[in-house]
């Protein structure tokens, strides 16, 4: 029958995994090993998530320039392929809804489908923390992650001059990868507050348990310095200035009392990563404010089980832990899901969990150090008045402060005062900033301001696609 007349997928799966990054791939592998019937649904065209993007079929002749960690992605993708028929893999599939009864609606290949599962592992990963600075909406300004994705997925590197600005390990990693790829005109403008270093030192003893992370970081930065890449530390008051065509032309910033500018035709911003909570928010799962990482995360138990029965959250989507931690979390979530389905006894689950638990604790040992070192500077949490906060609807920080003065108490009320958070990105780009600005202006902690209420569809879906679906359901 023609594709448009195909029925919605009715056969229920034991487990549906949403997202094929390290957590999703590991959860799928574990579940397949346990004999569960698994569906893996991923928005990308190939498995790997953002960290291992295109790891199975790289457009690069020399994949080694991405660094040794990328290899792990190739191993996971290969293992996933070996699952064969044990797992139905839906690629290029945008999930636009999950219902509390564990029905998943997604679009793939121009049509919508429904899928049912007895358990779901959400492995929807991280997104970059917004870094609102004046001029960040100009064409030619992108995230550091975007720069890396262009390289991993299409083999594109900047012609230069490129400036990487902000804070966090990814900033240096991307600069180092560009250096390996032969990019010559790179500058790093670091915004990490000077006081962070002393605070991070307190966590050094524990971080030494994960010494390989520290070694890697030190090696990267030393390689950049050796190659003569300028690293300007302690930058504040960042501002993007356009060229005559209206694209990015220069980054202006202040170090101490000196005002500096770096010319660039590509500016990559980075301020760490935060869990992407759109899916768990849309399900009204309980979320908690993480004061250390200054972000929201879904409340989960030690297996990743969320407040919604049948839904586990694994990987960075449950709180930032990095790719290796995500793998362990994916395995733990799959084990507990199998237990809940009666496919593993609690004892057997616990036994099988001991290795991933050990790995998880080792890989998380570095986090308190990194969290303290790269805690975002206040400038970027609550930017100056003129800064656009909501990129979709062009609401500025000053607008939000005026609304607070007029009685706005949180992001949801903000939607009554303006269209902030109501554009196509559904608050992904402004939600954290709006919460921080409102909380600071009211003089209350962020949890008291709250977060946007998120509703499906999470991704664009056409009325045509939806009507196909209702006909199929008849």
């Amino acid at each position, binding site marked *: 029958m023609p594709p448009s007349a195909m029925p919605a997928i009715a056969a229920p799966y034991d487990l549906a995994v949403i997202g094929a990054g390290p957590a999703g791939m590991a959860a799928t592998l574990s579940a397949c090993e346990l004999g569960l019937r698994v569906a893996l649904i991923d*928005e990308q*065209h190939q498995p790997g998530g*953002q960290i291992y993007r295109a790891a199975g*079929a*790289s*457009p*690069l*002749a*020399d994949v080694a320039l991405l660094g040794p960690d990328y290899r792990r992605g190739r191993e996971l993708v290969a293992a996933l392929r070996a699952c064969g028929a044990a797992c139905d893999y839906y690629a*290029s599939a*945008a999930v636009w809804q999950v219902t509390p009864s564990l029905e998943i609606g997604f679009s793939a290949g121009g049509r919508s489908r429904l899928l049912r599962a007895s358990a779901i592992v959400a492995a929807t990963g991280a*997104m*970059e923390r917004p870094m609102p600075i004046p001029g960040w*909406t100009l*064409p*030619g*300004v*992108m*995230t550091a*992650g*975007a720069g890396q*994705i*262009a*390289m991993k*997925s*299409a*083999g*594109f*590197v*900047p*012609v230069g001059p490129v400036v990487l600005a902000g804070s966090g390990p990814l900033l240096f990693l991307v600069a180092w990868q560009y250096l390996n*790829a032969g990019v010559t005109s790179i500058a790093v403008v670091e915004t990490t507050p000077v006081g962070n270093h002393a605070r991070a030192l307190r966590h050094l003893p524990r971080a030494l348990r994960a010494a390989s992370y520290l070694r890697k970081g030190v090696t990267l930065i030393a390689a950049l310095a050796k190659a003569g890449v300028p690293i300007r530390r302690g930058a504040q008051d960042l501002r993007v200035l356009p060229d005559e*065509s*209206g*694209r990015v032309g220069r980054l202006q910033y202040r170090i101490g009392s000196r005002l500096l500018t770096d010319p660039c*035709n*590509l500016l990559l911003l980075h301020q760490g990563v935060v869990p*992407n909570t759109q899916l768990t928010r849309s399900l009204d799962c309980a979320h908690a404010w993480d004061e250390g990482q200054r972000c929201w995360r879904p409340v989960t138990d030690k297996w990743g089980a969320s407040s919604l029965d049948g839904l586990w959250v694994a990987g960075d989507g449950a709180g930032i832990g990095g790719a290796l931690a995500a793998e362990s979390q994916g395995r733990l979530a799959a084990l507990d899901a199998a237990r809940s389905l009666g496919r593993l006894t609690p004892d057997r689950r616990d036994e099988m969990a001991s290795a991933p638990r050990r790995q998880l604790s080792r890989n998380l040992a570095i986090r308190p150090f990194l969290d303290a070192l790269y805690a975002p500077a206040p400038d970027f949490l609550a930017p100056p008045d003129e800064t656009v906060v909501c*990129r*979709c*609807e*062009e609401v500025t920080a000053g607008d939000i402060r005026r609304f607070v003065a007029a009685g706005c108490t949180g992001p949801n009320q903000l939607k009554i005062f303006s269209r902030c958070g*109501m*554009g*196509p*990105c*559904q*608050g*992904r*780009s402004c939600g954290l900033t709006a919460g921080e600005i409102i909380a600071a202006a009211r003089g209350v902690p962020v949890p008291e301001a709250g977060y946007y209420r998120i*509703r*499906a*569809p999470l991704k*664009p*879906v*056409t*009325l*045509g*696609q939806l*009507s196909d679906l209702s006909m199929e359901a008849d």
Partner: protein
Amino acid sequence: MTHTPVFRRLPGPDREKVVLTVDGHPIEALKGDSVAAAVLAAGVVSTRTTPVSGSARAPYCLMGVCFECLMDIDGEPNSQACMTLVRDGMVVRSQAGERLPAGQPRGGA
């Protein structure tokens, strides 16, 4: 409007060449590229203008989060160019000031 390209391609395994048109101008890309990557590499300045001030925007996150890359792709408006792979003969248009309400399905069949 285009500018001098700010990306160059590193050597890689052979991939099929495809040609798509962006606002009527043909651009070349390789199979496996996203529309957003192809458009950026071709030096297209902006992929849409905003509904509020009409300011120019271009792909920002390349991972489906920011929705700055919304374009009309093969007659389907508000498509995320960073999540769509290029295809030979694809017809892509930038979007001017269109408003897509969140939390509501968009029209069209």
